[in-house]
């Protein structure tokens, strides 16, 4: 067991898979020589060399095209899109090409690739470098969507994503890079599409993702001291979506809160809430409450950004009010 930062877990996860499978390659802007602008990929160039770890031009379409064409022909690429906001300049590759290739060709084309990206706010980068766009990805049939909250899951879900035969978008949270958790020694492999119950409590279920998981857990600790006992579920992936874990929990708690960093309209929690309304309505003792970033572009000022993205205090206060 070693304590790793979430940042260090990224290179550990990629290296684990590159050692295991010589067909795994890694490409992106500033990822090799510079070790990534977030220093997430330090050391990979030294270990695996410039043939397998490639610095690219600022050409997001070319990067994802190279990844797709390689994946179609026997290679297992991991591509980096530096900030998830930049998906907007290469979304054609993701949505029209990568996501649809298998279905449109009725199974002829394989696309086993991973696109990892720095997602999310609370980093004071302003509206074009702070977005949570995991809900964009969730809306597109044909891609899997993963967002780890811990260093362990960065390694284990990266392994699962690389080994998966389908394209996976891997959303790392920029504000989690400096956080530390224990990661088991040796090979770490998790399973896509399995949520994890991070805390068990009988009064309500809180479903969260990525940076919202530690915030939900901290809010749950505050509430516990007031006698409100919360279950916290870390979804870990949006596609596949582990509704069984959520629905089982609601049977026990009868209340659901989602904590989402994406803007409110069409956020992932809306889908979760709609499924719960359809399939567990009679298990609920009250309305589903979504705690989200408002439907706003994100501001740069720390004061304003902290008002926008769900905070521990907002999560705790919302649940306190709803349950009292």
């Amino acid at each position: 067991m070693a304590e790793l930062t979430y940042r260090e877990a990224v290179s550990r996860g990629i290296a684990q898979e590159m050692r295991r499978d010589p067909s795994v390659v890694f490409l992106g802007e500033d990822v090799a020589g510079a070790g990534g602008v977030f220093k997430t990929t330090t050391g990979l160039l030294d270990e695996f060399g410039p043939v397998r770890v490639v610095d690219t031009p600022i050409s997001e379409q070319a990067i994802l095209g190279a990844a797709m064409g390689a994946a179609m022909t026997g290679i297992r690429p991991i591509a980096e899109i530096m900030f998830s906001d930049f998906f907007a300049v290469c979304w054609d590759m993701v949505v029209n090409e990568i996501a649809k290739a298998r279905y449109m060709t009725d199974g002829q084309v394989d696309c086993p690739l991973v696109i990892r990206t720095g997602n999310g706010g609370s980093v004071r980068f302003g509206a074009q470098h702070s977005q949570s766009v995991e809900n964009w990805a969730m809306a597109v049939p044909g891609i899997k969507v993963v967002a780890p909250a811990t260093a362990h899951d960065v390694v284990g879900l990266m392994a699962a994503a690389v080994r998966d035969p389908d394209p996976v978008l891997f959303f790392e949270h920029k504000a989690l890079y400096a956080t530390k958790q224990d990661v088991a020694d040796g090979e770490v492999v998790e399973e896509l599409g399995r949520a994890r119950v991070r805390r068990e409590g009988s009064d309500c279920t809180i479903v969260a993702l990525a940076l919202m998981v530690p915030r939900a857990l901290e809010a749950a600790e505050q509430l516990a001291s007031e006698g409100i006992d919360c279950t916290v579920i870390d979804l870990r992936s949006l596609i596949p979506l582990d509704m069984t874990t959520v629905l089982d929990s609601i049977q026990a708690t009868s209340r659901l809160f989602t904590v989402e960093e994406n803007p409110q309209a069409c956020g992932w929690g809306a889908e979760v809430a709609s499924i719960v309304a359809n399939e567990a309505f009679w298990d609920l003792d009250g309305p589903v409450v979504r705690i989200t970033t408002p439907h706003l572009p994100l501001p740069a000022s720390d004061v304003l950004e902290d008002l926008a993205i769900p905070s521990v205090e907002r999560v705790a206060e919302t649940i306190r009010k709803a349950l009292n």
Partner: protein
Amino acid sequence: MSGTSSEVDSPATTARPGYGQHDPIYPEPFDDSLDRADIPIETRLELYRKQQEIRQLEQRLYDLFVQNLVKGTSHLALGMEAAGAAFGVALSSDDYSFATYRGHGHTIARGVPPEPIIAEMLGRSTGLLGGKGGSMHLTSVEHGMMGSYAIIGAHLCIANGAAWSAKLRASGQVAVAFFGDGATNIGAFHEAVNYAAVYELPTIFVCENNLYMEYTSIGQVTPVANPAADRASAYGIPSTVVNGNDADAVYLVAREAIEHARSGGGPSIIETKTYRHGGHSRADPGTYRPDDELEVWMAHDPIPMYHQRLLRIGVGERELTEIETSVAAAIDAATEAAKSAPPPDAEALWTNVWADGGWQWRN
């Protein structure tokens, strides 16, 4: 206001013709000296056969449209057969082709049989893509036909990926991306050519310049005469402009570019000057073309021109007729088989989203 309009009315803008205002562009004359080109007769007969296959397939698809048996849209390449045929002959069987939505010809040119192509157009279960892809996405991985891509530009970047993969695997394969003149003005073209040049990828970029980006003359919206080839120097890679209606001419430059890429020389751009006999798509009668332009190009139809060349170099009329009739018989048989094939089962809707064959996204 006058100051503003004179700034907008720059020389670069006024030099471009307005919509439908451009002068006609006529074909280069067929170069009879290529009669003596170093191309074996068997290869030339194959070039003729493939041009016939493309022509007769597309004419049949057009007929099936008129009969309302093909739904949706279709983008025919009648008049543009030479380039597809030339690459179909010049490529090795494991090389990669990436085509556009105008890709029926490139598909059959890689050896894909006509029946699954026609069945796909008719939306039948026996279609190349089980009825799920349609006209714009013809793909046959087993033939090296890695797809037909319907969003302009993307597949140039994807072809680079296949070329990169070939390089990583030291397989000696090359990747060819076919695209139209219109694609040279989208960002993905420039990203892809730069990327291929930087990594010396075995990608061959083949611009089939048919003079029109959809409905608009390419000259109206492009500041250089050769929209693909003239951009190559910006990326430090070789380029060739070739008569795209002469299968021998295209074959010779294709052979050279393929050899260049296969031997580690990196990417290149080939721009074929050609013309589509019809409009952009099923919906387009092509009325934006200057008066006699189509007429002159029709007189330079690649197939009768090539037929004449083969006669000049001593092939008998009878041998050519045999090729034509055997292709016609194959297209007829394929049409009948496709028409009598059943539609897809409802179950097909739910298959092959994921590698496990299914579509489930939640438990």
